[in-house]
């Protein structure tokens, strides 16, 4: 037996499998895919804002009423996010170490801006996620403005008294600074997804041969759909299309 073959002993194999660049890439791809699934779902749910205050708040109440499942979902999403960020940090560090001395000039021939700035986009998105949670979920930032505590607003219906998230959303998006923040963040999201989703299927070894083109289209298409879907909300509020009195 050669020395190299002994290295595939079970323990070494496990260590390799957990620390290998390719394994980390796979973790990044899978968590990215989870995240992509979530943002699609999140967008679809929120588009109900176009259906009016009652429908939208029904939906919010439904989600809030999931009890333990809600916390399982939140924990899951946090884990996904954590692993995604962790692998990104580890891999980026490895990449930087792989080329400590930069070129005076390195031209790109094929890649996209999105691909070149995945890490930067990721940082933007991470900051945005924190802000977004602080904003709508926790109400600690922009929970109240212009003297109104929108986070605490309640809608009284026949069945229940519940949080009036709809009004909080509309009021927020009527603030230019908040709307712009959301629009910019979603452009970043669209760009991140357009490279990330395609990349996921390449890392998974699926986007090859005749499957290459469909997946190369899928990423940008997915990014554009999610991005446009999300941006449509502040735009519609701004244009007075929804939320107008």
């Amino acid at each position, binding site marked *: 037996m050669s020395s*190299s*073959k002994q*290295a*595939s002993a079970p323990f070494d*194999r496990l260590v*390799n*499998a957990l*620390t*290998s*660049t*390719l*394994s*980390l*890439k*796979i973790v990044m791809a899978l968590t990215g895919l989870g995240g992509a699934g979530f943002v699609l779902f999140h967008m679809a749910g929120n588009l109900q804002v176009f259906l009016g205050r009652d429908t939208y708040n029904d939906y919010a109440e439904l989600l809030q009423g999931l009890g333990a499942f809600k916390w399982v979902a939140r924990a899951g999403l946090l884990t996904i996010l954590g692993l995604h960020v962790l692998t990104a940090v580890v*891999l980026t560090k*490895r*990449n930087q*170490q*792989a*080329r*400590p*001395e*930069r*070129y*005076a*000039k*390195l*031209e*790109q*021939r*094929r*890649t996209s801006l999105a*691909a*070149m700035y*995945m890490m930067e986009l990721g940082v933007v998105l991470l900051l945005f996620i924190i802000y977004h949670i602080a904003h709508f979920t926790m109400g600690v930032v922009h929970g109240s403005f212009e003297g109104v505590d929108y986070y605490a607003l309640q809608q009284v219906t026949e069945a229940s008294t519940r949080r009036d998230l709809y009004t909080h959303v509309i009021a927020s998006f009527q603030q230019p600074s908040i709307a712009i923040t959301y629009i910019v963040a979603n452009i970043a999201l669209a760009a991140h997804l357009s*490279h990330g989703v*395609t*990349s996921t299927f*390449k*890392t*998974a*070894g*699926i*986007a*090859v*041969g005749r499957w*290459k083109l469909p997946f190369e289209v899928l990423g940008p298409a997915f990014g554009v759909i999610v991005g446009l879907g999300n941006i449509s909300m502040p735009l519609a509020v701004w244009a007075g299309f929804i939320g107008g009195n």
Partner: protein
Amino acid sequence: MDIKLKIWRQPGPDQAGFFEDHRVEADPHMSFLEMLDVLNEQLLVAGKDPVAFDHDCREGICGACSMVIDGHPHGPRAGTTTCQLHMREYHDGAEITIEPWRASAFPIIKDLVVDRSAFDRIQQAGGYVSVGTGSAPDANTIPIGKRELDEAFDYAACIGCGACVAACPNASSMLFVASKVAHLSLLPQGKVERKHRARKLVAAMDAEGFGSCTNHGECSASCPKSISVDAIALLNREFIRAGLARD
């Protein structure tokens, strides 16, 4: 034609490097390396230190030449090694920047010469079919379809120059490793050891300190043999298959 050059000079591996300006009178029919030969002859006759660069066959197959020209490994023309680049690609008065491959796994030895032995060590880890001399069956015993053969060949065409690493924003050697894995795992002869090979080559690649693939495709765009980036997806697939396997 009057050519202005900005060339990376580095006396040794541990010494600091810098750019040096030179001028050469070139002929449009010269190859890029012949233009550098002329420069070196000038320097030499003037008693100055000529520029060291790797080169050998000068017909695009040995994979020795390695320089980043104006931000492109092997220069501006796609599917071409530096030695096959000709000065007619440039206009009179052009200013050209020349740098070595830059990657921590390819330490600079001198000027534009880098140490690419990392590639050999990766191949040694398992880039082969374990068949001893004399133990081969008759060559026609295993039929191989023309299409699968052609596909395997496209990957086998790698010349090991390292342009993929040089072009990759992450200095990843995935295309190099993937070409060998794809070549052998697409052929029946190489299928027996495919899991072992995928694991070993990826581990060896990591040990050399190359970066990770983020699917830019720059490697393939700069590959003088235009090897498809599909190789990388195939390597990923082989790696996952090997990871899920019990043996």
